[in-house]
């Protein structure tokens, strides 16, 4: 190689090397920045997810307290009042005994239902069954739960969210819909869980603004949080139907991601 060639070689190799190093460093910095941003975002989402789960749990607990208060006042309280009246009216001991036995039975049922351990380890199916039994027992609404397919294990945090959504729907049905029937279906398909809750109540017009506030957006947001999809169909005088579809073993659930 002559002098000119050596010079050219040095310039070319330096430029090539310089560009390579600059490219590598830029890619590395860019990658690190994106990685850190993504980690922060994931942490924020995880925190938000945990907060929402806690919120749902607190709401479930509040609802339980409300139900206990209601049952103590309107069910057990009524039975005790009846026993008192029977005693005042000198009714037969058997009659009073019968009323008190009924009262004790209700009390035991209630106690069993609200034991913290029972609430903690309850599956979605058990929790919904508990609600249905309560509705039927207290003659709130005639309710029915149907399970289809083979039950698949779902993350308990996700079950909490689904149960809270259903509870919100039931509460709307009882408070506003004036329905006589409530049907719930838990349909376990191979890779999908479809939850359907349907009442035969007053229904409402989905397009009317004032109705969209009754927990509907809350239901949809909560479903979205666990990568599920919630749709609500309703027409005046034709009842309301809630459908939640959830992909089982969804890779992007927070429980598996975090």
């Amino acid at each position, binding site marked *: *190689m002559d002098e*000119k*060639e*050596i010079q*050219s*070689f040095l*310039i*070319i*190799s330096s*430029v*090539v090397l310089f*560009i*390579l190093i600059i*490219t*590598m460093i830029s*890619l590395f910095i*860019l*990658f690190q920045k*994106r*990685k850190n941003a*993504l*980690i922060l975002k*994931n942490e924020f989402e995880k925190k938000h997810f945990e907060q929402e789960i806690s919120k749902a749990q607190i709401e479930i607990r509040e609802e339980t307290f409300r139900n206990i208060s209601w049952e103590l006042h309107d069910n057990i309280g009524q039975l005790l009042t009846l026993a008192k009246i029977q005693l005042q009216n000198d009714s037969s001991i058997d009659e009073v005994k019968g009323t008190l036995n009924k009262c004790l039975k209700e009390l035991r049922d209630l106690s069993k239902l609200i034991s913290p351990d029972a609430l903690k380890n309850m599956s979605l199916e058990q929790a919904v069954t508990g609600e249905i039994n309560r509705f039927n027992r207290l003659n709130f609404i005639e309710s029915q739960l149907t399970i289809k397919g083979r039950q698949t294990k779902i993350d308990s945090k996700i079950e909490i969210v689904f149960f809270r959504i259903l509870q919100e729907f039931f509460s709307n049905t009882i408070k506003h819909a004036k329905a006589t029937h409530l049907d719930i279906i838990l349909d376990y398909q191979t890779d999908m869980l479809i939850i359907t809750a349907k009442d035969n109540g007053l229904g409402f017009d989905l397009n009317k603004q004032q109705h969209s506030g009754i927990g509907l957006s809350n239901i949809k947001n909560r479903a979205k949080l666990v990568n599920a999809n919630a749709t609500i169909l309703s027409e005046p005088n034709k009842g309301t139907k809630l459908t939640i579809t959830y992909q089982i073993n969804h890779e992007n659930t927070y429980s598996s991601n975090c």
Partner: protein
Amino acid sequence: MSTNPIFLSYLINALELIAAVFALVHYKKYVNSSERYFLLFLWVTFFIDAILGPLSIFLKLDNTWLYYGYTGISFLFYYWWYHTILMERLYKIIIKVLSVIFTVLYALNSLNVELHQYSFIIGASFLLIFAGFHLHQLFNSDYTLKIKHKLSFWITIALVLFNIGMLPFILLSKYFNVWINNLAFTSIFFILNMILYSCYIIGFSWTKKKYNHF
């Protein structure tokens, strides 16, 4: 500096072979993705570079067209691959348009051997744009956290580093008019090839099946 530059070209052939063997050994990990065509591509590269090339020299045939043909096909293969893995519609349209422009310019440049280098420069420039699209797509996805297991990332890094080094190498060699087949210049070409195939080998070794599903 007195070593024969042919020795380095044998080393490049060895790198091509090692990369192709790694691609074969780890094939199961990326069989469900469009990266599976790289197995064939790497073996074709080895076959052309290590067998057909030397054979044409041995038979005293002009191998200009063999390498020019390989350059065109390899760029179009990379373009097609990026077209399949990029999600955004705009990116796909840009790839289609630039592929057509490349094909036309490639055909025009083929008329004059002097212009063959420009085909590489155009092809490599377009490829760098598509690689940028892919990196943008990857960095905006959840793959960022597990990027070392993603084969398309390593292939893209390989292509970026090789082509971004090749561009000034070719342009400056032409500018100084020193395109000479000696060890000093072949060594730059060797280093770029080493980076290219090392990234391929790392990619095939580190990739995991669950990150290569489309």
